[in-house]
């Protein structure tokens, strides 16, 4: 207990320091979002540098570069340059065909089958032709019982059959007629001729020397091929000269593996990295020196990441099953102060389930205002009365055996200790709640431990976050009462109205009707407050000042099509490579 008190003090002091330093206004920082960063490439190719290298930042070492086995952001960052997929995520999170690979997609009238047509003459980097059989093979591997394909498996849920009609056509069959089916065929492909060898010996694709080697030095079909992987140090890619799509702009892409963000920023200032993601603190404070200004600029844009406080409502605590309590909590939270001090004015306040970039976003939802009086009234109404002796709130709770016990409103808020902002947010909230008579304890946990607690429902409240999928139907898994076991409804939320809206949104094929449904859903969920929505995290990045052509999607500057492939350097401004 004393540890947490001490911890609270440290964090409070840190927050006070934050208040003192909160004089940063990104709109007045000349290094933020300069026009050059977003400049489109000139029409004539000789004004674009052709031999430059770019050095990119990786937060962790990839476990594998086999695209069906990967799931982390840093793995996708490398893999998207090695592998092309027929269906890709567009710049605004839209479903689109990859122009370098696919020619068409059509669904039957009953929406139960679909055909995907590939371009003719595609090849793998080792020269072997790429056909519909490779797509089918990848689907079979993703659905295999033995292969640990977490992300790809979840993505292809609902595709019950996949077969090659001819070398360039793949036919899919779906379990149900749903408007979201086209997203289900967006999965990575694998070179069958590489992985089929040794499949009988190792059906997991990940445990034999042959497969491990294939996963580390993959035969891809993307704009770059892997030339070197020095463990714990760097991964080097080189332009694949025979790539069928647009000519890759950099002769080399070097990924430096740097887990520590402070180290990465120092490397960036030494021009040893050309791009990196920044924390709010780094963006607002640690990048204001001359050394940074000499080499870099900063980019900032909205991102589809939602931060919230999740309240556990599965009945294991006597607090959060009552909607008035959750609303009271939301009113007690001093969001204006938090936005200004904890997030340095860089983050925008969340308006619920869907981020502003989503077509399902509802900007008309009335937000919970910071109002301790309203919070107190709601807690009173829920039966939590202030004890005049000690000032905390208590309520008589009836146990399963009918006996009454007097329970103090005291609970624990868990958060990730690695986060730079959550501890400060928690400390502000702790003070807010003390004012209304609620005793909140803080518990900093390692990310993995925190996830484990949430996964097994062993928590009362946590600071939680997710990146919204492009398709709002993703909310089904988060909020539907049927997703309480097996899905991601870790808070044990069950609301028949919400269930009904989720079902309707999933079935309708009319985009306007769906939009109406999801707007209503977002409003309902915000008001019902199974989560207290906090902020939408922005993308905060540093780029070397010679880099052009950056676009920020709702997921950041990479991870979509064309993403990092569109970056370019003006001829004459090359920094590396052979000139």
């Amino acid at each position: 207990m004393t540890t947490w008190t001490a911890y609270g003090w440290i964090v409070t002091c840190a927050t006070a320091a934050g208040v003192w330093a909160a004089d940063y206004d990104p709109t007045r920082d000349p290094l933020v979002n300069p026009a050059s960063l977003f400049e489109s490439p000139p029409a004539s190719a000789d004004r674009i540098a052709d031999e430059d290298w770019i050095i990119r930042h990786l937060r962790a070492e990839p476990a594998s570069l086999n695209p069906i086995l990967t799931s982390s952001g840093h793995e996708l960052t490398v893999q998207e340059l090695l592998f092309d997929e027929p269906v890709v995520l567009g710049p605004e999170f839209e479903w689109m065909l990859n122009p370098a690979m696919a020619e068409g997609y059509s669904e039957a009238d009953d929406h139960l089958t679909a055909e995907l047509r590939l371009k003719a003459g595609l090849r793998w980097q080792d020269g072997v032709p790429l056909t519909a059989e490779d797509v089918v093979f990848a689907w079979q591997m993703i659905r295999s019982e033995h292969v640990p394909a977490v992300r790809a498996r979840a993505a292809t849920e609902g595709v019950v059959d996949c077969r090659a009609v001819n070398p360039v056509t793949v036919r899919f069959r779906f379990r149900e007629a749903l408007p979201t089916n086209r997203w289900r065929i967006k999965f990575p492909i694998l070179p069958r001729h590489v992985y089929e060898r040794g499949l009988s010996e190792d059906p997991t694709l990940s445990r034999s020397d042959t497969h491990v080697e294939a996963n580390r030095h993959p035969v891809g079909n993307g704009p770059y091929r892997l030339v070197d992987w020095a463990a714990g140090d760097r991964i080097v890619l080189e332009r694949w000269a025979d790539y069928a799509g647009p000519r890759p702009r950099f002769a080399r892409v070097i990924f430096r593996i740097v887990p520590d963000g402070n180290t990465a920023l120092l490397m960036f200032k030494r021009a040893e990295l050309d791009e990196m993601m920044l924390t709010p603190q780094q963006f607002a404070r640690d990048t204001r020196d001359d050394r940074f200004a000499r080499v870099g600029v900063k980019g900032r844009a909205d991102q589809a990441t939602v931060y919230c406080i999740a309240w556990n409502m599965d009945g294991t605590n006597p607090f959060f099953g009552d909607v008035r309590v959750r609303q009271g909590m939301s009113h007690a939270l001093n969001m204006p102060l938090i936005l200004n001090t904890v997030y340095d004015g860089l983050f925008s306040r969340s308006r619920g389930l869907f981020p502003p970039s989503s077509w399902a976003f509802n900007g008309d939802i009335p937000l919970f205002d910071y109002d301790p009086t309203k919070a107190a009234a709601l807690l009173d109404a829920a039966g939590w009365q202030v004890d005049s002796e000690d000032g905390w709130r208590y309520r008589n709770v009836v146990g399963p055996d009918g006996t009454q016990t007097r329970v103090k409103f005291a609970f624990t808020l868990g958060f990730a200790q690695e986060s730079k902002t959550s501890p400060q947010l928690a400390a502000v909230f702790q003070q807010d709640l003390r004012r209304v008579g609620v005793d909140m304890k803080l518990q900093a946990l390692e990310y993995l431990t925190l996830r484990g607690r949430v996964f097994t429902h062993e928590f009362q409240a946590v600071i939680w976050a997710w990146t919204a999928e492009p398709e709002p139907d993703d909310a089904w898994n988060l909020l539907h009462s049927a997703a309480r076991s097996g899905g991601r409804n870790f808070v044990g939320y069950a609301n028949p109205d919400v269930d009904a809206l989720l079902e309707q949104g999933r079935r309708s094929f009319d985009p306007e009707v769906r939009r109406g449904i999801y707007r209503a859903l977002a409003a309902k969920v915000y008001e019902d407050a199974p989560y207290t929505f906090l902020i939408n995290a922005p993308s905060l990045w540093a780029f070397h000042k010679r880099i052009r052509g950056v676009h920020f999607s709702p997921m950041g500057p990479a991870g979509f099509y064309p993403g990092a492939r569109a970056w370019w350097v003006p001829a004459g401004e090359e920094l590396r490579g052979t000139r």
Partner: protein
Amino acid sequence: MVRYVAKRLLLAGVTLVGITIVTFAVTRLAPGDPALEAVSRGGASTMSAEAYARLRTYYDLDQPLSRQYAAWLGRVVRLDFGRSFHDGRRVTDKVGERLPATLCLAGGAVVLSLAFAIPIGLASARRAGGVFDTVAGGVLAALHSVPRYVMAMLLIVVVGVHLDWFSPYGLRSDSFEDMSYPGKAADLVRHFALIVFCFAYPLIAYQARFIRGNLLEVLGQDYIRTARAKGLSERAVLHRHAFRNTLLPLITVVGLLVPSALGGSVILETMFQWPGIGQLLFQAMTQRDYPVVMALTVVAAVVVLLCTLLADLTYALADPRVRYA
């Protein structure tokens, strides 16, 4: 002698098994497991109970702990450390490719520290209590009391980033392949200098004081008086007669310092982006990569046990009064 060595080796074996049992238990007791790590690697959106259960089976985590340990031990006695949970590679490959980077550091640190410690120790002993002895003693004591990670941060920020004299990160530059041979050598020195110094400086202090103390003890011996009486120069007395007699205990001390240097490598390698086994251990722990953690524990334990054994044996060799009881 043979019986003594056999007995010590047997004891070392028992200790080693004890260490592995404790490490095995501790790593499994830490919350979270590799299946959870894998299932939540893509953020909260891929977490599902079905995928988690599937992965627990994939990693054999659904077996009882005792059976998992027995299976592990059964493989290790055949020198098979299994495959990493993280990337499926053989653990021996993963450790093997990183071992040279760490050994270079440990070796470089020992050589560098001796290169400074021996002259300083000799000079201090020659005029014990003199100006040099006092100043050197003070400076070394001050250095010795600065934690390695503090020194590392200072060096990285000041000497590495602001003055830009050295490259504080990694083994080599990105353009290393295109450099000439002298250029490559210079590049390696630029990358080696700071981290090796961070490893070495506490050793300098320790060894210099150790040499000085031993020399002073030896210099009071009768045979030193004899050497002086023969008319040998003070230099010859100190170097040839006195210092040689302090060499053996010095070797022992260096042997015992190597494991401690390996321990320090976890933090330093992480700070300097050094792809050695310290960094690997740190990553493996955060990823709950049990096979790699276990293998590195065994390696470290074997090194420590061997060094202790060698130290005891050399002591016995150096001083016949020590009996192999």
